[in-house]
């Protein structure tokens, strides 16, 4: 009498299929996992260098100061001193590399982003309601962004 235990065929096939799927997954992983993965954490170590090698769009305040010294000096005396030039003027790397490339034209939207009246802003921060404060006029007709406390 044959009393040897025999696995049912469904189980045998499913086990084989599982081994096949897991095996092909492991083989695929061996080939497709990037070599620098896990170097510093759950990401490709090479990604840091790749991100660093992207072309620059912002030049930084020192680059602007090299040519526009006068404006930089003026700015340093007033309340906008902590702002970087490119906060208002837009990214300037292209302009630094080639002076023929002009910076984007400003609108008063730039001023209103910080100075439109908003009850959540601190009281010491200068704010106006653009609907009531000389509607239709441009901010720079009365105010100097580089010397905001001066009245022309």
């Amino acid at each position, binding site marked *: 009498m044959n009393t040897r235990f025999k696995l049912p065929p469904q189980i045998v096939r499913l086990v084989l299929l599982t081994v096949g799927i897991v095996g092909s997954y492991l083989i695929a992983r061996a080939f497709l996992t990037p070599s620098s*993965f896990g170097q510093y954490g*759950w990401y490709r170590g090479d990604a840091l260098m790749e991100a660093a090698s992207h072309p620059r769009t912002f030049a930084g305040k020192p680059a602007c100061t090299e040519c526009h010294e006068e404006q930089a000096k003026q700015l340093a005396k007033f309340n906008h001193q902590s702002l970087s030039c490119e906060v208002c003027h837009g990214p300037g790397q292209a302009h630094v590399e080639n002076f023929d490339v002009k910076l984007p034209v400003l*609108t008063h939207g730039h001023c209103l982003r910080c100075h439109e009246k908003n009850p959540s802003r601190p009281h010491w921060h200068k704010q106006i309601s653009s609907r009531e404060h000389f509607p239709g006029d441009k901010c720079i007709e009365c105010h100097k962004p580089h010397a905001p406390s001066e009245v022309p």
Partner: protein
Amino acid sequence: MDVTNVVVEAMPHFEGYVYPNEATLEPLWSVLIVLYPYITGLVAGAFIMASLVRVFRVKALEPVYRLSLLTAMSFMLCATLPLLIHLGHPERCYEIMMTPHLTSPMAIFGFVYAWYLMAVLLLELWFDYRLDFVRWSKTEKGFKGLLYRILTVGVTDESVGAVALDHKLSWIISIVGIPSAFLLHGYVGFIFGSIKANPWWGNVLMPIIFILSAIVSGIALCVIHYMIVSWVRRKPIDMRCLDIMGMFLFYALVVDATIETLDWVHRIYSKEEDFAVIQQMAREKLFFSLNIGQALCGTLLPLLMLGATQLARKRIPDIVRKRMYLASGMLIVLGVLAMRWNVVIGGQLFSKSLRGFMSYKMEFTGMEGLLMGGAVLALPFVIFVVMVKLFLPEKSPAQAAEAVTI
């Protein structure tokens, strides 16, 4: 230029105070992320419906057992699609498997999904269908024959012992499947509920609410599918089966509505400093989708209709009951979609400062637009139709054989 235009240009979508990182053109999670928990919920719910038959032995629901499993399967295949489209770069989809992340809550969905698809749904379907596959592979020719032959995985044993083993294993997988279905959708609730800083989301009841609403939407979808499939095939609807489905739908909806109300009571009472913003959300920003969509159409009306069918089942004629079940099912399915919308979009419509609101206007075309959302939501139904054609003939060989033996 008119000054008001300037203001609109400067702050186009906001009211009050909004942090700079919240000042995006539209919420970071848009309509596709609404569909993701919705589709996953339908999977979990349809599976729970099927397990009522296998695990809890509700014999009356036998006619919808396979239909529920196929519903779960067709939606399961599309569950990751909204995420894939939302993230962009679908060609990188394999990378999540090549470099699995073991500590990120978001990445854990990969494991939960893989477990549920491979170890639960596919296996349960395979054990349930194995005998049919063997018989179909012998009778069918051409593509269908080839498909069935592949699906037998080479196991052609039709003996009584082998079939009994299929049933037993299918039952065991069903039992494993219930906590897995809870896990699948509880996980989605956990993703939102674990965000402590957001008063609209951060709530320990969130996983439970997601599971319960998933069960409700899944059963409702099975009711709709059963009625439509029967109508298309010109087959009479088994009223006893439909009544029992309606009964389970009613009870599930009662529990779901209770827990969701409890969640609201808890939220209103405990979120002291967030209360004003939550109130404004409910009264203004989400008035239609929350009060009308989710509460009135998605919960109250179906509760009344299903409650009436429970109280006066014998007095309501079959045809009216059918209409009531279908209407309730459709309202619930839409109501749960509104609920997902309220959770996902609602949580992103107010600033973390609690003093400002963002807005969301869905675009029509585009990767995150109405058209794409519609296509993603339509795809599981297309897959379902194909699956019904392939795997749900009017009478399966196994059922036919059982009928002869009985």
